Structures are given as C-alpha cells and as structure tokens.
C-alpha cells in the first residue's frame, strides 16, 4: 500500500525512483549547510568530551599511581624494618651467647697457655753433665804401662770404672731426654685445644660478619627505598605479585581442605540440628557445619596472631605477653575441642552411612556387604583422623591469608592503573575517531548530493568568468572576484583539515608521557 503511494507513475518504477532521488538530493542540498554544522559541532562536542574524560582519567590514574607507590613504599619499609630488626635480634642473640662464653674461653686459654709454659720450662732443663773427673782419669789411663802388670791392672780398673761411669751417665741422659719428650708430648693436646678454641672464635666472628653483610644488604635496600629508586620499587612490585599468586594458590588448597572438612561433618550435623530446617534456602545442618569450620579458621587466625607469626590484628600483637599467652592457651583449647567434635562427627558419619546402607539393603533387597564392612574400621579411623587434623591444618591458612591481603592492595592498585590507562586510551581514541568522522561524514554527505554540487560548481565558474570579464572594465568587480576566490579557498580548507592531538596518550606509555 505504502509502496503504491510512493509510485508517482506506477507503470514506470524507474522513473518514479529517479524523481524521488532527485527530490531527495535537492532537499539534502538545501539542508547542506545546517547538516554540515550539526556534524561538525557534534563531532567537536564528542571529541572535547572524550578529551576531558581522558584527562580526568589520567589524573585519577596519576593519583592512583602515586598512592600505589606510597603504599608499596610503606609496605616495603615495614618489611625491611622487620627484616633488619630480625637480623639485629639474631646478632644480639649470637653476641650475647658468645660473649657469655668468652670469660670461660679466656680462662681456658690462659690455663692452656700456663700449662704449655710450664711444660716448656720443664722440657728446657739441661741433661746431667758428664762427671768432671773423667778427664783426669782419662789422662792417667793414657800413661803407658810399660809392661808393669800392676800398672796395667790399675789402668784396667780405671777403664772399667770409666766404662761404668759412662754407661750410668748415658742412662741418666736418656732418662732426662725421655722426660723432656714426654713433656713435649703432653703439650700436644693443649695446643690442639688452643687451636680448637681459636677456630670456634673464628667461626663466631665469621657468623657475625655474615650477619653484618646481610644487614648491609638490607640497609642498602632500605636506603634505595628511602630514595624511592625505581629499581627498589620494581622489586617490591614484583615481590608483591609473586606473593599474591603464591598465597592465592595456597589459599585455594586450603579452600579444598575446608570443603573436604565440610563434607565430613555436614551430614552427621543433621543429628545435632535436624535435617529439615532451612536458613535462607540452605540446610541448617550445612550452615552449622560451615560455621564450625569458619570458627576454626578464626581461632587459627587468633592463634597465629597471638604467637606473633602473623600481624593481621595489631591489637593482639600489642597485647602484654601474659595476655597473649592466655589467648594462645584459650584459642588452642577451643581448637582442640572443635577438632574433637569434628572427629566425633566423622565417626557419626560412618555410623550413619552404615545404618543407611543396611536399611537400603533391607528395603531394596541388595546384596550383603559384610565382607566390606569388616574393613570399615580403616575408613572410620581415617575419617576421624582427618576430622581431628584438618582444623589444625586450617590454622596455618592465616599465613597465606596475610600475604594475600597485603599483596592484594598492590595487585589491585596495579590493575586499577592499567584499567584507568586503558579507559583513557579508549576515550582519546573515541574522541579522535569522532573528530576524523566529521570530515568523513561531510564528504559522504557531499557524495550523496554530488549532482547539485556539480551544477553549483558550473554556475560558480560561469559567474567567476563573468566577474573576471567585468573586472577588466570595473575595478570593483575585481574586488568581488577576489572575495569569491577567498570564499572558495576557505570552503576547500574547511573540508580537508588534518587534526593533530597533542594529548594523545597510549596506555602502554608511562603516566605523564604523551606521544
């Protein structure tokens, strides 16, 4: 029906279409100025709005980067403080332990030195000399006997006496030398003890040197942090990311453990709270089981806090030692009770399973499972063991949780910065696209009315020719022609503007740098 009304000549569709197209083109030609204006103003408006949005986003991104940097710096400082304090504590304990031993060591060394000194003195005693009269006897013995038997006898006696004296002296000399040697031999363990004591001192000194080197390294990192060096910031950032993923992985494992724990106690919990009541669409027994597990996790957190292994709650960490110890005792007792309850529930689960299996077998005439039941104690014991151990295992979830919470701030900060940069990039891209779209749309519009424009151009050229011809006669006409030329030049320029956006920023470039 509508098509029929559009047909000017129903028998000639092509003619009708041509007429309509011509009319359409004329209308578009008449509306050319306002439409160009609308396109230009709209694109400019969108371009400016997007630029403003991008600038605002980059400012927010800059602030967030600064804030991330400060947070990272503070967390790094805190970590370094903790590490340096810990190293100093270790040095303190080493020095105290070793210094406490030093008087005893010194006394021992002095005793050893005294013993060595005494032994040395004793060993330095000269062996007994040969008797002085042996020279006189020797001289007498050298007198020639000249065949006198009495003299020969006397000389023989002297010779014997000398031999006897010589052997006695030699024996005494050997004895004295033996004593010296034994004294020197006794010195050997003293020397060894001295060497051992000095080696112990050397080892202690080396330990202290190593600790001091570690402290030097930490101090260097600390100084880098204080000077806000990029390398230190990158290291901290990388460390946070690593911590985030590792702790997330460990937390996932812990969640798996908690789920097993939940399945272990949810069914038998029906014996305690009933199996027909619901809270917000969930079975009360399941919620009770979940609450028990969450209470265990909470107790684990408090226990770790009280032991100062984690630092999630400063209030607990800053408690007096006596109060902290009380908290350790209380939380551990609660955990022990809950673990016992879980163990009992795990046992109940097995009892229920057996009862249900027996009933099912009786109702559905299933085959007896007595052979399997005889080995059921293994699964019962395993379930009870798991029910008892899992609450304590979940206690340690506090450590990865702390790392996760601390590193999460950094990771979310980095993600936020990336998101803001991407949004700013998108805003600038959209703005530039709209700006270029202005030219494209104007050209497309003109393409639609190319016929009237062509006619317009012919008319203008003809007018120009007429004006030029008249200008030769009238100077005013030349002025008009110049004006017409100016207008034409301006029109050409308005259709071919090339835009350069000085504020265009890629999301991959650092904040504040523009291309």
């Amino acid at each position, binding site marked *: 029906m509508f098509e029929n009304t559009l047909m000017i000549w129903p028998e000639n569709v092509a003619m009708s279409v041509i007429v309509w197209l011509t009319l359409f083109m004329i209308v578009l030609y008449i509306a050319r100025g306002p439409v160009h204006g609308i396109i230009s103003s709209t694109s400019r408006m969108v371009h400016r709005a997007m630029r403003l949005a991008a600038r605002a986003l980059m400012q927010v991104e800059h602030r967030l980067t600064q804030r991330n940097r400060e947070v990272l710096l503070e967390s790094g400082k805190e970590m370094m403080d903790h590490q340096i304090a810990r190293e100093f504590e270790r040095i303190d304990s080493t020095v105290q332990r070793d210094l406490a031993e030093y008087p005893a060591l010194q006394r021992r060394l002095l005793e050893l030195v005294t013993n060595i000194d005494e032994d040395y003195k004793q060993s330095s005693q000269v062996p007994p000399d040969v008797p002085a009269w042996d020279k006189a006897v020797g001289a007498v013995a050298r007198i020639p006997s000249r065949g006198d038997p009495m003299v020969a006898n006397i000389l023989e006696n002297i010779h014997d006496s000398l031999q006897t004296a010589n052997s006695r002296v030699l024996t005494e000399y050997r004895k004295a030398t033996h004593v010296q040697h034994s004294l020197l031999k006794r010195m050997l363990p003293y020397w060894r003890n001295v060497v051992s004591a000095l080696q112990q001192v050397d080892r202690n000194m080396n330990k202290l040197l190593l600790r001091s080197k570690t402290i030097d390294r930490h101090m260097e990192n600390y100084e880098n942090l204080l000077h806000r060096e990029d390398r230190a910031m990158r290291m901290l950032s990388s460390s946070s990311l690593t911590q985030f993923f590792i702790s997330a992985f460990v937390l996932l494992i812990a969640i798996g453990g908690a789920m097993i724990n939940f399945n272990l106690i949810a*069914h038998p919990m*029906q*014996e305690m709270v*009933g*199996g*027909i*009541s*619901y*809270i*917000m*669409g969930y079975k009360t027994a399941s919620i009770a089981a979940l609450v028990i597990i969450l209470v265990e996790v909470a107790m684990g957190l408090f226990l770790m806090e009280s032991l100062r292994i984690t630092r999630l709650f400063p209030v607990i960490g800053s408690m007096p030692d006596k109060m902290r110890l009380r908290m350790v005792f209380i939380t551990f007792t609660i955990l022990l009770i809950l673990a016992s309850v879980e163990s009992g529930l795990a046992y109940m689960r097995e*009892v*229920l399973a057996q*009862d*249900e299996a027996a*009933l*099912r077998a*009786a*109702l*559905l*005439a299933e085959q007896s499972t007595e052979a399997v039941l005889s080995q059921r104690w293994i699964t019962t014991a395993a379930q009870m063991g798991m029910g008892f151990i899992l609450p304590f295992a979940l206690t340690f979830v506090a450590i990865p949780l702390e790392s996760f919470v601390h590193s999460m701030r950094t990771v979310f900060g980095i993600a936020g910065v990336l998101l803001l940069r991407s949004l700013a990039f998108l805003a600038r891209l959209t703005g530039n696209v709209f700006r270029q779209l202005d030219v494209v749309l104007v050209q497309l519009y003109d393409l639609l009315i190319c016929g009237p424009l062509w006619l317009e151009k012919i008319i203008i050229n003809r007018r120009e020719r007429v004006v030029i011809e008249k200008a030769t006669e009238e100077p005013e006409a030349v002025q008009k022609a110049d004006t017409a030329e100016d207008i034409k030049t301006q029109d050409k320029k308005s259709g071919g503007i090339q835009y350069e956006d000085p504020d265009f920023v890629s999301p991959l470039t650092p904040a504040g740098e523009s291309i």
Partner: protein
Amino acid sequence: MRHEYLVVAALISIYTTGCAEQVSHTRGVYMLLDTSGTYTRELVKAQNIINYTLSQLNPGDSFAVARIDTASFSEKDLVTKATFDPRPTTTNQQKRHFRVNFNNFVKDIHPSPYTDITGGILQAIEFLNETGAGKKTILIFSDLKEELDKGYIRDIPLQLNGVEVVALNVTKLHSDNVDPREYMDRLDEWEKRVAAGGGTWRHINDLERLENIFID
C-alpha cells in the same frame, strides 16, 4: 551507641529473615492401594514400590499408605503413616517400623467389594495438606476402575493444586482386552479430572523403572 543499636537491629533482621523461611522443602507421599477383587494379588508389587519410596524419603518427609475399599474417605483406611524425624538415625528406625507394619497388613488383607478411588484421593489431599509438605505426591496403585456402592456420592471436583498424581500398575481388565478403548478412556478420564483439579498426572506401568516415580 547508635551504631551498636544498628548492628543489633541488622543482626536481628538477618536472623528473623532466616528463621522466617516459609518454603517447605519436605515431601509428602500418599499411596492408595486397590484392595478390590483380584487386584489384591498385585500387592506384592506394591511392597517393592513402598520399599523404594522409603529409600527415597528424607528426614522431615511424610509417607502414608491407605487402602481403597468401599468407602475410602476415612482415616480407618490408613494402613500406616509416618512423618519422619529430623534426625537421620531416628528416621531409619521409623522406616523399618513402617516396612514391618505394611508387611503385616499384606498378610491379613481381605478383598473389598467396591473401589472408592475418589474417596481415597480426597483423604490423600486432606493428609498431604495437613503435613504442609512442599512437594505432594499421590501414588495410586490400582486398575483405576471405580465401583461405588449405592448411596455414595463421589461426583466431587478434586482440589489438587500442586499435587502430582502418579498412577501405578494400571492393569488391563478382561473387558479392556475386549475393547481397549475402555482402558484408554478410563486413563483419559482420570487425567482430565486431575488436570481439572489443578494437579499433574503421570502414568507408570513399568515397575522395573521405579526411579521414574519421583522426578524432581
């Protein structure tokens, strides 16, 4: 102090919201057993269905078995019934008692001359509404051939909103074999009555596939 009041109010509102859980998650099952004529011989099959039903029910569910006789709209026709305890161990004990009660009934059964199915369904609706169960099922173990004694009025519309009616073991009578249209008409008529009452109708003859009885 005001913050504390707000926190307490929030906790109370959460608690009351949780306690105000009005949606029932329990199931109510009412089984009607045809005890007329030769159909009593089919009751062995009914034992299997009851055992299967017992194995499928959970703590808090309700289950009743009633016979269809001359005048079934009566509590006297209830063979055995139970609303299971919230505790699973007690539920298991109740199921064992239920089974024993039904077995005793099967041993001493006497055939009834008439079959008042409508009266039985009315009694079932009453029982199921009283249990407040979220899912209501009526199992009809019968050939669905209603035979009323003189004076009994059963031309009553059934109120079966939210009730699922499952016809089990609808045996073919000799007359059905002569003219199968009778059998089909009988089934159609019951389906229409149940649908008119707002209930849903299912028909299961293959008792080897008992898992089709309860489809959630």
